[in-house]
């Protein structure tokens, strides 16, 4: 299969503008007759459904949640990037484009990223108009802050709840269309299969999660906005129900999974505290502005801490290893996420971890407290302030900057981070990989589109902070409403799709059989226990550092686990009722296949880039070594039970020069 990315001709900066003004349109009278299915109501899905509804299409929108407002976009903390250049600090669409390409370690498609940077400014305008209460300066103008990996201040934010505010904006826009009747909302409906008619995506099969009924829905095209698959690792910062099922079912119907091994491991999360742990909580990247990361120099000290005999304050300054500052003097504690995560792993692998499990490093605010305290004392005119006074003043400054995060940390761990340094450890946070799409965000299956985190398109091998929200909304508000016309303009003569057609009946039958198969196993192990085991395999062999041997081993372990799953899983209850265990089982079944493809992809990619670190490919200092000559391509995988099949899309860089990232 040849992968045509359909990037328009012309200079990079003009491509989108020119393309927009010359693309095919669907006239209003035809729009009214055309139906679109949107799966997912996060930033991408809600914004797409709302906008398509405004345009006059008949939209059917689906979520497995009880309300569209629950989608996991809501949990994003930090902010959203936009090249507004309100700070007059030299920002531009080109600079945002360049930062994103570089941050992604040169593994994304130039044209898509540039379009993203271009529309970023419109997103902010749109959100403000919807009533999103962005942070503002006293003068009433929008405020910005900085994020990792860039030299300008272009992140817009709403305290630590930017994702929530943006999602509520999109949810309200969606609600307005629901009230107008242009969008029909289906809550508590989980997509369990894609239906293709004559090779085109024409509908989906859903399970009504309240009644267990299997329902058929037809439309002229299908848009997936179903998020990422980080939960394949079991423990991640994703919500408990985030899953790959809708995307994976589409892959099994012919779509391709691109770069599945690109996983973002976020360096600052609250570490695992015990076997019962169900999810991990992120501590915003912004903490690394003032926090210093360290572990004890001596393994003996670390072990004493692990046993609870010593705490951080017992370790004298000279026995501490501020390893990020030591290894990366230029960027220090503010190196990008992938670099910081790997360095923490290295320290813990050496036996210097600082929690009961040995899997944590310190994030210490003591020197920031002292620094701020002294400055405050100076400003208050206190001469010769006592140590206590300095600490008191310094803590007040830290509280003002990060108070809510410190509070959250204390709620979860029961420790006071003003007194003892925080303990943090990397955790799975975002998946850059996803369904392969072309410039139109259309998959290789005609009529099937993928938006937001569910596609692979814009972040390459590593995503920069505050860019996920930007991409979700760009795709939903400003890209898909145009590009979907390229497909639909050829469908204006297609009558309404019949959900009773043979393809639908067949797909429904298959879904029912799959459910009966799972319900029929009646083994002895819970779904959760399989998910946990899968997560451990993924984390061990396909986590922060990977090698060929481990990946091969991991792949085999997943295949074995899959077999065990299909012979020994136990699902209580019945199919025709509200049954969360059955929902989970369907999702874990898909993770058990996806996990294998991730291993295969990681094994195939003989280089280290961004979130993908192959131990065989590192410099003498332990830095990632890319192989541009052989791997400047998107690896798009076609599902095959025995051996997934690789399709390549070569990445062509016409505007930026490929360089080695260095933070030293």
């Amino acid at each position, binding site marked *: 299969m040849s992968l045509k990315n359909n990037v328009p001709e012309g200079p990079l900066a003009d491509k989108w503008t020119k393309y927009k003004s010359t693309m095919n349109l669907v006239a209003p009278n035809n729009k009214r007759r055309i139906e679109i299915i949107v799966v997912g109501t996060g930033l991408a899905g809600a914004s797409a459904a709302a906008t398509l509804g405004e345009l006059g299409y008949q939209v059917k929108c689906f979520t497995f949640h009880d309300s569209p407002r629950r989608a996991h976009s809501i949990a994003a903390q930090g902010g959203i990037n936009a090249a507004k250049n309100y700070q007059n600090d030299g920002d531009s669409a080109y600079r945002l484009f360049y930062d994103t390409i570089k941050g992604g370690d040169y593994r994304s498609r130039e044209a898509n990223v540039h379009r993203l940077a271009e529309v970023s400014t419109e997103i902010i305008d749109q959100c403000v108009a919807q*009533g999103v209460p962005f942070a503002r300066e006293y003068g009433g103008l929008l405020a910005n802050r900085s994020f990792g990996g860039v030299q300008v201040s272009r992140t817009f934010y709403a305290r630590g709840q930017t994702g929530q505010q943006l999602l509520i904006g999109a949810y309200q826009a969606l609600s307005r269309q629901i009230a107008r009747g242009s969008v029909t909302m289906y809550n508590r409906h989980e997509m369990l299969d894609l239906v293709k008619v004559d090779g085109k995506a024409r509908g989906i099969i859903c399970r009504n999660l309240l009644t267990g009924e299997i329902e058929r829905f037809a439309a002229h095209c299908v848009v997936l906005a179903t998020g990422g698959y980080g939960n394949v690792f079991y423990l991640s910062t994703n*919500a408990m129900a985030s899953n790959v099922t809708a995307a994976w079912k589409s892959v099994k119907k012919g779509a391709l999974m691109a770069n599945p091994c690109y996983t973002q491991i976020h360096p600052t999360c609250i570490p695992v505290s015990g076997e019962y742990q169900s999810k991990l909580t992120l501590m915003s990247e912004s903490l690394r502005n003032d926090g210093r990361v360290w572990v004890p120099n001596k393994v003996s000290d670390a072990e004493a801490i692990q046993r609870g005999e010593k705490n951080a304050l017992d370790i004298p300054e000279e026995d501490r290893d501020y390893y990020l500052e030591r290894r990366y003097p230029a960027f220090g504690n503010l190196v990008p996420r992938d670099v910081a995560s790997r360095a923490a792993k290295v320290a813990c692998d050496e036996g210097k971890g600082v929690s009961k499990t040995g899997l944590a490093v310190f994030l210490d605010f003591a020197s920031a407290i002292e620094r701020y305290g002294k400055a405050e004392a100076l400003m208050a005119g206190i001469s010769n302030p006592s140590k206590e006074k300095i600490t008191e003043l310094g803590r007040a400054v830290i509280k003002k900057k990060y108070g809510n995060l410190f509070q959250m940390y204390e709620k979860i761990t029961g420790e006071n981070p003003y007194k003892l340094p925080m303990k943090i450890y990397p955790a799975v946070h975002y998946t850059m990989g996803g369904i392969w799409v072309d410039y139109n965000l259309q998959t290789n299956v005609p009529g099937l589109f993928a938006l937001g985190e569910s596609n692979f398109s814009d972040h390459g091998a590593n995503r920069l902070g505050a860019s996920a929200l930007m991409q979700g909304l760009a795709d939903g508000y400003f890209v898909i409403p145009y590009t979907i016309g390229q497909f639909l303009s050829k469908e204006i003569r297609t009558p309404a799709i019949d959900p009773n057609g043979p393809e639908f009946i067949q797909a429904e039958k298959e879904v029912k059989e799959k459910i009966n198969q799972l319900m029929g196993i009646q083994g002895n192990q819970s779904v959760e226990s399989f998910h946990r085991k899968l997560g451990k395999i993924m984390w061990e062999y396909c986590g922060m550092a990977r090698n060929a041997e481990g990946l091969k081993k991991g792949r085999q372990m997943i295949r074995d686990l899959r077999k065990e799953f299909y012979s020994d899983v136990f699902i209580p209850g019945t199919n025709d009722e509200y049954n969360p265990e059955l929902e989970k089982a369907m999702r874990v079944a898909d993770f058990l296949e996806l996990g294998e493809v991730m291993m295969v992809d990681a094994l195939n990619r003989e280089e280290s880039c961004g979130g993908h670190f192959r131990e065989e490919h590192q410099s003498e200092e332990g830095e990632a070594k890319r192989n541009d000559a052989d791997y400047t391509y998107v690896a798009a995988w076609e599902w095959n039970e025995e051996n997934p099949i690789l399709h390549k899309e070569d990445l062509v860089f016409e505007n930026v020069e490929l360089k080695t990232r260095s933070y030293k």
Partner: protein
Amino acid sequence: MKLTLKIWRQKNQSSKGAFESYQVEADEHMSFLEMLDVLNEQLISEKKSPVAFEHDCREGICGTCNLVIDGRPHGPSQGTTTCQLHMRSFKDGDTIHIEPFRARSFPIIKDLVVDRTAFDRIIQSGGYVSVNTGQAQDGNAIPIEGNTAAKAFDSATCIGCGACVAACPNGSAMLFTSAKVQHLGLLPQGKVEHKSRVQKMVAQMDKEGFGFCSNVGACEAECPKEISIDNIAAMNRGFVGSMFSTEE
């Protein structure tokens, strides 16, 4: 720590529910929901039906988790959702009552799971700014005073969990509705539709069967996002104003 749980079990909306007792061994570092996970694993291993409860993000922002714990929505900790509540708030040997949010407009689906779509319909009745994609002017075209933006934000932090309704002895949705009305009404972008928004949202709220507000204040006390009943007073003011308006 050893705990006795008295959990409301109810097969479906039409059946009658009752409390059932369970023993569970928990760790003080567990979150409350992880403690329930442990119980469910236990029940599944005994081939019994696990307790149905809703949860998702487990970081206090999605609004999915609910539960009334010892008579209080989201349990004993101030400004905390159930998922952020940790077992160190309880003692060894405690007996804990766990039951669903109770209100006529939140029918029980199963065990501890309730249907909160009435909230969606209230938003659909007018909880938005009528602006289509692409119609926006520059984000900085209308300056909004920092304090006003912050106040709107305070109202906008509502996570739509429904604890206000659950806490209210009248099953009233005034805190939820007023928080949305205030969030949008304070901003210049939302002011334009303010009057009609208040009327439509209040009408929908009544239609859904929520009770009247009698200013008990339990909603404010139990709100995990600590949203103030100032919002209710402000909405009342707006509602009185809109009644005297000559516009439709």
